[in-house]
């Protein structure tokens, strides 16, 4: 017995090492499971406020760019609004479910962002206090950005599109063929469009947008343009399509959060019929 204890005492460093490694690997696994709650991350108040201080300094230098982008978008929206404004003599339309507003938007500031790892996340300065919930979509004027993962009082953490575990339902605009967008972890400007069958004619330069099937993003948000079409080497029934992202992830300052007010209903319907809901 004594010798066992002596032996254990001699290898105590290794035992502690094994224990700490186990702890670290458990943290990695717990953090990467999409459903699992994250215990520690940058939505923590202390870390969030430190990151915000850093962003305050860094983003000061890109204020002019952010301003220009906002003004341009404002102008575009104003123009659309003018076209939509109802003339006083037109007939009133009854609002039914097809015209009901199902998406609500919020603006948020990006305080931290990474694009060099294979699981990248954004930290946003808007949290539960402002009505942010896990599962909301994130986009900006250039295109889609990601999806909210977890929320604290003032901050929230979102999966970036540049995260290999995020799937987004998408379609090719011209042909309405749909598939899933996923990052392969290689280049921060390119993603893959998966599950497009081989008979589909897709060509370089086609625009890819969100499909609106997933109840997270509204239909028609820009994702990017097709830059390469090849037959998938692993499974020749499918095409392997590379998309150049329209969003510049290295210059994210402000983003929009979108919430589908009918998400609960659609989600429970999917569950009732045992369909997996991809995001």
């Amino acid at each position, binding site marked *: 017995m004594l010798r066992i204890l002596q032996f254990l005492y001699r290898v105590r460093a290794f035992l502690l090492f094994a224990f700490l490694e186990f702890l670290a690997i458990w*943290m*990695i696994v717990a953090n990467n499971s999409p459903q699992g709650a994250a215990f520690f991350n*940058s939505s923590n108040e202390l870390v969030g406020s430190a990151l915000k201080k850093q962003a305050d300094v860094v983003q000061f230098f890109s204020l002019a760019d952010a301003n220009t982008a906002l003004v341009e978008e404002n102008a575009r929206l104003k123009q659309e609004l003018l076209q939509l404004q109802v003339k006083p003599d037109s007939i009133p339309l009854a609002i039914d479910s097809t015209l009901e507003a199902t998406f609500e938007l919020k603006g948020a500031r990006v305080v*931290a962002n*990474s694009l*060099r*790892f294979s699981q990248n996340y954004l930290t946003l300065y808007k949290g539960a206090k402002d009505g942010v919930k896990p599962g909301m979509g994130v986009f900006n004027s250039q295109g889609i950005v990601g999806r909210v993962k977890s929320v604290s009082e003032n901050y929230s953490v979102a999966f970036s599109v540049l995260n290999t575990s995020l799937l987004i339902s998408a379609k090719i605009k011209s042909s309405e063929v749909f598939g899933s967008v996923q990052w392969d*972890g290689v280049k921060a400007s390119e993603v893959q469009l998966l599950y497009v069958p081989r008979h589909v004619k897709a060509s370089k330069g086609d625009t890819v947008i969100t499909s609106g099937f997933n109840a997270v993003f509204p239909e028609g948000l820009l994702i990017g343009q097709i830059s390469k079409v090849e037959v998938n080497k692993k499974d020749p029934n499918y095409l392997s399509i590379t998309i150049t992202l329209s969003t510049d992830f290295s210059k994210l300052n402000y983003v929009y959060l979108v919430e589908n007010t009918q998400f609960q209903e659609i989600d429970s319907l999917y569950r009732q019929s045992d369909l997996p809901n991809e995001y």
Partner: protein
Amino acid sequence: MNIRNLFSYSFVILILGLVQILFLKNLALFGHAFGFLYLLGLLILPSTLRTIPLMLLAFVLGFILDVFFETIGMHTAAATLFAFLKPIWLKTASPTGGFDEAEEPSLTQIGLGRYVSYAFPLLFIYSLAFFIADQWGTGGFLGVLSKSFFSAVFTLILTILVQVLFFRRKRGIS
């Protein structure tokens, strides 16, 4: 290690940690070479420091970094491995009458050649562990290998630069 050294080591580690978090977060040369400069703080800790406190320190450092980088567990796992291997490597790799005479295995104490042969393998193993954890299940092993190699080289260059610029020759630490 006396109390004064303790302060100066804590100060160096704190500064390196801040630099890592504030400046080196999104820096990657050619998207390939990452700089893990904070490891310098662990590298220069004297050989008299035991494995267990070293490992605990590395665990905590890695964890703090992870929380800021949103890479929970990855730096922690790699840094713990790094701290576990450091004393062993110091012991086995020291040439006869080598490292152990110098208390602190820093560039100014042991010279460039020895420093490179001491630091590079450790940095490489750290990077390898980190990128394997990062790209688990995605990406090929070749990509991980090249990323690790170039990150280790880049980190090594950074640590040498910092030591040449900021560490005084006499006491080792400014």
